[in-house]
């Protein structure tokens, strides 16, 4: 029997058994749970930074004129030689592909000039080909990957990444250090609120990743260790844009 045929048989049998039970569908509950929330900009930022710092991330607050210098300082102090970044989509996409871009995609390139300036002393790689052609360098040569962020969640100190053609998924995953730029205006109180206010269910992309610190594990004798498989360092450059 072919794979799909046997799967279809299984599907029918499983659904038949489930449907044998006549259950009145339960309507959506009206319950809610208290979610951390604030209107106070300062509190919002404080909680965001506190959460990330508690989870071993380094947070640096800057205004937009300081990005390049800060980046240079970070890369120099860590002695990173090779960094990889995405591409500002307007430079690399054909017209038709660029038209498919949402406003968000185009914002990916927002700090492109600053990143280029800040990392000019490094070996600068652009993630501008498919991963198959790039994998070896990504795994073996690169010290840090730099990304923008889609948003931030203050409650838990979380970065929201919305990887796409400009900034692929592995950019924030494979290099030993992930440097993330986030605009203060994109930080919201909590996850549920961000999801519902922005109606994510209507526009799910290939992948969304929430990141709340560098990779870690407590699998050996409940002892916390960082850098399990993903980046062992997470450096967050928080850009004041209000």
């Amino acid at each position, binding site marked *: 029997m072919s*794979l799909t045929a*046997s*799967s279809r048989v*299984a*599907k029918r049998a*499983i*659904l038949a*058994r*489930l449907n*044998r039970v006549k*259950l009145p569908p*339960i*309507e*959506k*509950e009206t*319950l*809610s*749970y*208290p979610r951390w929330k604030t209107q106070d900009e300062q509190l919002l930022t404080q909680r965001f930074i506190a959460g990330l710092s508690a*989870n071993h991330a380094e947070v640096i607050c800057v205004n937009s004129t300081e990005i390049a210098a800060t980046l240079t300082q970070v890369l120099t102090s860590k002695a990173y030689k090779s960094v990889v970044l995405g591409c500002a989509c307007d430079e690399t*996409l054909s017209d038709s*592909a660029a038209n*498919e871009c949402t406003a968000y995609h185009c914002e990916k390139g927002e700090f492109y000039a600053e990143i280029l300036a800040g990392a000019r002393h490094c070996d600068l790689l652009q*993630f501008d080909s498919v*991963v*198959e052609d790039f*994998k070896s360098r990504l*795994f073996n040569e690169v010290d840090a990957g730099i990304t923008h962020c889609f948003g931030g969640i203050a*409650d*838990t100190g979380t970065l929201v990444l919305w990887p796409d053609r400009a900034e*692929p998924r*592995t950019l924030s*995953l*494979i290099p030993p250090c992930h440097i993330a730029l986030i605009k203060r205006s994109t930080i919201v109180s*909590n996850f549920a609120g961000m*999801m519902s206010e922005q109606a*994510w*269910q209507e526009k*799910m*992309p*290939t*992948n*969304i*990743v*929430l*990141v709340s*610190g560098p*990779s870690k594990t*407590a*699998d*050996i*004798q*409940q*002892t916390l*260790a*960082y*850098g*399990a*498989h*993903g980046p062992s360092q997470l450096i967050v450059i928080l850009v004041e844009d209000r």
Partner: protein
Amino acid sequence: MNHSSKGPEHFHSQAKAALGDPQLRQNFRGAMDYLQDKRKSAFHDPVEEEKIRDLSEAIRQRCLSKLPQLLELLDTNCTRNGIEVHWAENSDEANDIIARIAQRHEAKLIIKGKSMVSEEIELNHEMAKLGIECLESDMGEYIVQLDGDKPSHIIMPAIHKNKQEVSDTFEHHLDNFTPTLDVDELIQTGRTRLRQKFYDADIGLSGVNFAVAETGSLCLVENEGNGRMCTTVPKVHIAITGIEKVVEFLSDVPPLYSALTRSATGQAITTYFNIISSPRKSGERDGPLEVHLVLLDNGRTQAYQDADMRKTLQCIRCGACMNHCPVYTRVGGHAYGTVYPGPIGQIISPHLMGLDKTKELVTASSFCGACAEVCPVRIPIPDILQRLRTAAKNPPEADMIPMTGQASAASTLESLAMKGFAFAATTPTLYHAGTWSATKLKGLMPDNIGPWTQCRTSPKFADNTLHQLIKTRNKKKGETS
């Protein structure tokens, strides 16, 4: 040391062996104290705890109330997103599906993220038969796999080992490893050895924490990043999950996720939360070219048939019940001989494996109720255990669908003895004769009466029966008044 067990049929002997292993008991005691403390501090406000548990329970019950419709919607939406959906009735079918995908891609290496369902179908073993290597990449799972061992906890698979034992494991199985008690060094060893494997693997396999019907999305919760590696780097991603993991709306996810991480490891949030909705789209530069979802029944529809048993399927696999179970804490996960140990394992395993194999397991409870008290989705585990004990001992009632292995623990002698006792206890002459002779023959009561005296002293009958005592007392009263 290999702690692998012979299966749930041998629970009593395995539990006895585990109790006699002081190192194992110390490792578990330490780990459980740690996890209990972490959960406690994650739910510091009892009002909030109640509210999130109420909501999580309600979401799971609502989703289960429309399970067949939601599964169809999930199938439709995943397919629309480009995810290929497969259905499997049992382990053989699930393994067959995965094997065929692997063979189509001539895959030699499958790198695995954490998936209890893949343990359930013994994927590694079955693929090895076909010459396909399955390598665990979760640190705990990797350590356990190196030892030819099995996970002893659903979220902390190597919880039964301390760092010395992990170092020993690495020393035995890895070339050029210098023994160390430095946990960072041990983790870096694992990281380095597995990196090349992520690079080389043809297929990445993962479990699923929540499958969202509304959007056709798969949600994965993890801290290490190996889950992201498995689902991003290889050109094919296969996700496998039990059919009960589907939720209706994307908005169902945040409260369940919060309940899960706080109940499991006391974290407000995990390092990574990964939502996957499709394979690599045209123009995108990475991510798998194919994503497959395998939906497995394997006995779950049996649990679904019964209103009480159905609550078993509310589980979000946080492991809090085992972390707080006095039996699990003392005997550890391997003694159960099942993929899912502890209280949740005791109520899910009979559906997966049949009551005939698991009848000893359903007796391994002190009925203290701690498991139900910490369950984030309020599964009434002790009540379900009672039902399973009854089902193990008795044939189904007229209007009930029998469970696999129903009445397999029934004993003619026990049932006759119970019937005899019921008759005697409801027939006054027999009852009085019985209690009178028990008081007279109390000297004949043996000191050892089987399992009862394993941890208790043998009971001694009183000199006089209660009836006699009351009679005497009333007589005295009559005399004095």
